[in-house]
């Protein structure tokens, strides 16, 4: 197996590890959880030299190639950069969470979610197939939902998680649409093809749609304005989650997408305009709001939004080095922001509060943590010798070189500087308010230093901030170059990663930002007072209201269609069917085909007339149930005759016997249904239904006529030719049933058996009101079982059984067979029930009909399986001819055994239904008294 596949797979397997080890000490759990991602990290590092030398790693396997969906992974510079961030910071978060989570939290569950997230995130950055990438993209939304709602007992956690899932999930759907449209344009879902087809995509008329859909996905994920509001609410998650998902990785997925698709989608005015303006707005808005947040994590959340805006702005600029600067800032932001979140978590953990109005002067209590946090916050502010300074300088340089807004382009560097002013101000606030500024006020706990190992992840990250800040080229130079190479998909322009570029505009901008930030912080009190004039909109409430509103509207629409009335559903359904049927019929130029028609005869016309009268009478009298039943039986009878007339004797026999059984069943049911005539439907509804049913009838009649008058091309010649030689029977219909299409028949008798058993379940314990008399109070006839009928039917039974045996035996060669014989037997038995009553029969017929069904299906199946003994496929039939004295020559065929199974199943099913329903009329039924 390709080593690259293990890279995402190990964390996936790793999500099981914490669940298995959760019962041990949490040190053990954390240690074991860390092993698999650590191995993944080693694999990445092992591959790093190759990638840095320009050799990418690939893994490919076909999944559903017809859809263009393949399992495809790639490790190039950009993936490498993100993979290292995801795995590296992920490992630190595992260590940190070990100390952060309290003993009440289920650490196993937490780690499992975290590993699932790590898997999905790695999947996003390593995917070489766009559909597959999208799948992982949505998985990150789902796993982050689980992580945000980890403290599900808190309402804010649930709401925050729901909001995050809705926004990022909806963005993901937009992304899917974009991917599919793009896939149609370039006829592939391969990432490499997409990257190489940038010119085709940009020239295509669907480009604006594709771009907007992709950007919707990216902006929602990366919390860009106006979708930024979910991120602060996601801070209800445990702090390790915030440090991991909402600073270092998941929110960077949107940025990653923009960087990844840069060669395919960027370099147009539309891209510059949308991406840069969105980024700029987000940058300013986030930086401004961050200053006024009293909650430590709130400040960091808005600062994250602001930095994501900065990176987006860089990706939106059309300058030489903007992409390089963006990637560089991704690294730097991930390191300092993750460490700041962890520091904030330590402070929260050790003091019990995150409110900066309470937290003051912590320097005295936790100098170690304070030092770390101060260094990280300085990096966030962009202080020289720290990594944030370098990428911010690059950012300033690029803002000076762009021409995105034409003659208004000068505004971008100015606004960027203003954003930086606020960044300095809130960073200063983070440092000064928390660690100095007097004494703590009313803290729930007495602050003290965090456990030793809880600080280790922060130390490592802060050390990286310093190292990158001082030796940028040495630490990240190669990685950055290789990532830029992948993101640009072409030659990377010259750049230098040194600390000192001489006195120039960017340096001046940094200076202005620092000075301005300090001044603003100094005058913060009047600013806070001013800001307090504006009521802060509660995004959660607004979101909830919007959601409720949408749900309300959808429910309204839904109720319009689905108002609980079956009649309406049927009406709508049939109307839709009419539309679907009518449309293709319009294309049919002539109803009449070329097949010559049969002549009309007086007999046929009479039969058709009878059928029409029967059908119409049924409709007219349908409220008088008994009468309608009689007229319906006329229709059924004519249908049987029609089958007989048009050369289908088997069908005629079947229809006739089914008719008897059906009518008996309906008569039985009449006994239990209200005797009173139903209320007449409202006239408008009758007109409505009549018109719809006439249209459908007309359509079906037309189709039927068109079908009948067209020549037939049938595959049946095969059956006719092989019926005798292959199946050993001359009745082709029966041979088809038990031989050629025996498998179908086996399925059908199984369905029959299941239906009968379902009915049996419905009947059992059914409590029905048994009327004591008819509608006018007249009692039932005392002569329940007329003697004439009883005697006659008793003597008829042997004859009937004989007939059914005959029909069964001759079925292979003449009209008949298992189905028909089974029905005839059933009719014979039912007649006994009618003549003698259930009680009488119970003492004489001791057959369990359920077992009969079972044995029927079993015989049919075993006959089929029998052919395996002779190394033949399932249901291969066998037949031969034998000679016996007196009887003469006769045929034996395995198909007869199969037909016996059919026969038994049909009897069992029919009798199970009717006998049990009949039983309800006896004294043994569950009684329900009528309340008067």
């Amino acid at each position, binding site marked *: 197996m390709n080593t690259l596949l293990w890279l995402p797979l190990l964390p996936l397997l790793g999500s099981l590890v914490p669940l298995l080890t959760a019962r041990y000490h949490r040190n053990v759990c954390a240690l074991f959880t860390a092993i698999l991602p650590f191995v993944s990290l080693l694999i990445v590092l092992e591959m790093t030299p190759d990638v840095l030398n320009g050799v990418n790693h690939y893994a490919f396997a076909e999944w559903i190639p017809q859809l263009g969906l393949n399992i495809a992974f790639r490790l190039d510079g950009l993936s490498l950069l993100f993979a290292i961030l995801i795995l590296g910071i992920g490992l630190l978060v595992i260590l940190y969470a070990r100390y952060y989570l309290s003993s009440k939290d289920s650490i196993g569950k937490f780690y499992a979610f975290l590993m699932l997230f790590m898997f999905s995130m790695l999947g996003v950055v390593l995917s070489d197939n766009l559909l597959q990438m999208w799948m992982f993209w949505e998985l990150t939304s789902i796993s982050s939902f689980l992580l945000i709602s980890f403290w599900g007992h808190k309402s804010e956690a649930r709401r925050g998680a729901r909001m995050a899932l809705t926004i990022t999930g909806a963005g993901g759907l937009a992304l899917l649409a974009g991917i599919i449209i793009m896939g149609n344009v370039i006829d592939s879902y391969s990432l490499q093809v997409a990257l190489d087809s940038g010119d085709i995509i940009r020239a295509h008329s669907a480009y604006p749609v594709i771009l907007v859909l992709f950007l919707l996905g990216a902006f929602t994920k990366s919390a860009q304005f106006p979708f930024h509001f979910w991120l602060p609410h996601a801070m209800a998650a445990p702090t390790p989650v915030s440090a991991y998902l909402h600073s270092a990785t998941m929110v960077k997925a949107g940025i990653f997408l923009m960087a990844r698709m840069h060669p395919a989608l960027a370099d147009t005015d539309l891209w510059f305009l949308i991406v840069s303006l969105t980024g700029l707005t987000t940058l300013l808005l986030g930086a401004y709001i961050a200053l006024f947040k009293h909650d430590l994590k709130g400040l960091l959340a808005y600062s994250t939004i602001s930095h994501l805006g900065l990176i987006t702005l860089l990706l939106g600029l059309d300058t030489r080095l903007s992409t390089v600067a963006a990637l560089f800032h991704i690294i730097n932001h991930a390191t300092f922001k993750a460490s700041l979140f962890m520091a904030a978590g330590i402070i929260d953990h050790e003091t019990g509060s995150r409110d900066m109005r309470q937290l003051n002067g912590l320097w005295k209590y936790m100098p170690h943590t304070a030092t770390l946090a101060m260094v990280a916050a300085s990096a966030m502010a962009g202080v020289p010798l720290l990594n944030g300074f370098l990428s911010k300088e690059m950012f300033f340089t690029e803002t000076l070189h762009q021409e995105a807004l034409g003659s208004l382009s000068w505004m971008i560097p100015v606004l960027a500087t203003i954003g930086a002013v606020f960044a300095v101000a809130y960073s200063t606030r983070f440092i000064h308010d928390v660690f100095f500024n007097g004494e703590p006020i009313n803290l729930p706990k007495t602050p003290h230093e965090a456990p030793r190992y809880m600080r280790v992840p922060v130390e490592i990250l802060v050390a990286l901030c310093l190292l990158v800040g001082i030796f940028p080229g040495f630490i990240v130079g190669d990685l950055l170059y290789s990532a830029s190479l992948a993101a640009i998909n072409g030659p990377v322009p010259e750049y230098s990663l040194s600390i000192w570029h001489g006195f120039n505009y960017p340096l001046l901008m940094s200076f202005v930002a620092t000075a301005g930030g300090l001044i603003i912080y100094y005058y913060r009190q009047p600013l806070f007072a001013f800001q307090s004039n504006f009521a802060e909109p509660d995004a959660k409430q607004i979101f909830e209201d919007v959601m409720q509103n949408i749900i309300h509207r959808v429910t309204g629409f839904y109720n319009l269609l689905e108002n609980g009335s079956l009649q309406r559903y049927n009406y709508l359904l049939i109307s839709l069917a009419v539309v679907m049927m009518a449309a293709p019929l319009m294309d049919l130029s002539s109803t009449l085909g070329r097949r010559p028609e049969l002549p009309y005869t007086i007999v046929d016309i009479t039969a058709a007339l009878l059928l029409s009268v029967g059908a119409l009478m049924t409709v007219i009298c*349908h409220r008088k149930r008994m009468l309608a039943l009689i007229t319906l039986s006329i229709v059924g009878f004519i249908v049987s005759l029609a089958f007989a007339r048009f050369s289908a004797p088997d069908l005629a026999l079947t229809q006739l016997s089914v008719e008897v059984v059906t009518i008996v069943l309906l008569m039985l049911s009449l006994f239990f249904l209200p005797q009173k005539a139903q209320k007449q439907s409202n006239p408008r509804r009758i007109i409505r239904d009549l018109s719809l049913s006439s249209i459908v009838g007309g359509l079906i009649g037309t189709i039927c006529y068109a079908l009948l008058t067209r020549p037939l091309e049938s595959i049946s010649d095969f059956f006719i030719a092989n019926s005798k030689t292959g199946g050993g029977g001359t009745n082709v219909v029966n041979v088809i049933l038990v031989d050629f299409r025996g498998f179908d028949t086996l399925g059908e008798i199984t369905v029959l058996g299941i239906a009968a058993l379902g009915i049996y379940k419905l009947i059992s314990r059914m409590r029905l009101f048994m009327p004591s008399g008819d509608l006018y109070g007249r009692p039932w006839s005392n002569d329940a079982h007329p003697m004439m009928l009883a005697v006659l039917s008793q003597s008829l039974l042997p004859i009937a059984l004989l007939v059914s045996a005959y029909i069964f035996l001759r079925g292979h060669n003449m009209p008949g067979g298992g189905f028909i014989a089974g029905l005839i037997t059933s009719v014979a038995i039912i007649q006994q029930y009618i003549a003698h009553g259930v009680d009488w029969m119970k003492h004489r017929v001791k057959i369990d009909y359920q077992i009969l069904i079972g044995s029927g299906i079993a015989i049919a199946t075993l006959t089929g399986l029998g052919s395996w003994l002779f190394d033949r496929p399932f249901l291969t039939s066998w037949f031969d001819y034998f000679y016996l004295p007196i009887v003469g020559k006769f045929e034996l065929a395995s198909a007869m055994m199969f037909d016996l199974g059919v026969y038994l199943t049909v009897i069992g099913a029919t009798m199970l239904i009717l006998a049990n329903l009949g039983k309800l009329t006896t004294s043994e039924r569950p009684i329900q008294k009528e309340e008067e």
Partner: protein
Amino acid sequence: MEGIYAFCVGLLTACGIFLTLRGRTFSVVLGLTMMSYAVNLFLFASGRLTINSAAILGQSDTYADPLPQALVLTAIVIGFAMTAFVVILSMRARADLGNDHVDGKDPNEIPTDMSQSKKGERN
């Protein structure tokens, strides 16, 4: 002949649909039965109409198409099972819900039915 046949299929369909759109279970059962006649006749028609040529080898010169016949034969039996199921279901519905309306609740209950409407409740 084909014209009459097609007319009958259309008429049965129309009557079946009209009845299935009614509000009482028994009418719906009647409608479904009628529709299954129509469907079976329609399927049978795909083998076209022939006279005096049953698909029994050696009995005639030409044979009717046996394949639709085999399909319709099982369709008739399964159609019966389905009708039976619907009938029993509607009775069960009446037993449990106290009325025979397809929606399980009577939109405009007639006073005389009131006595029966309550008794479906399980004890």
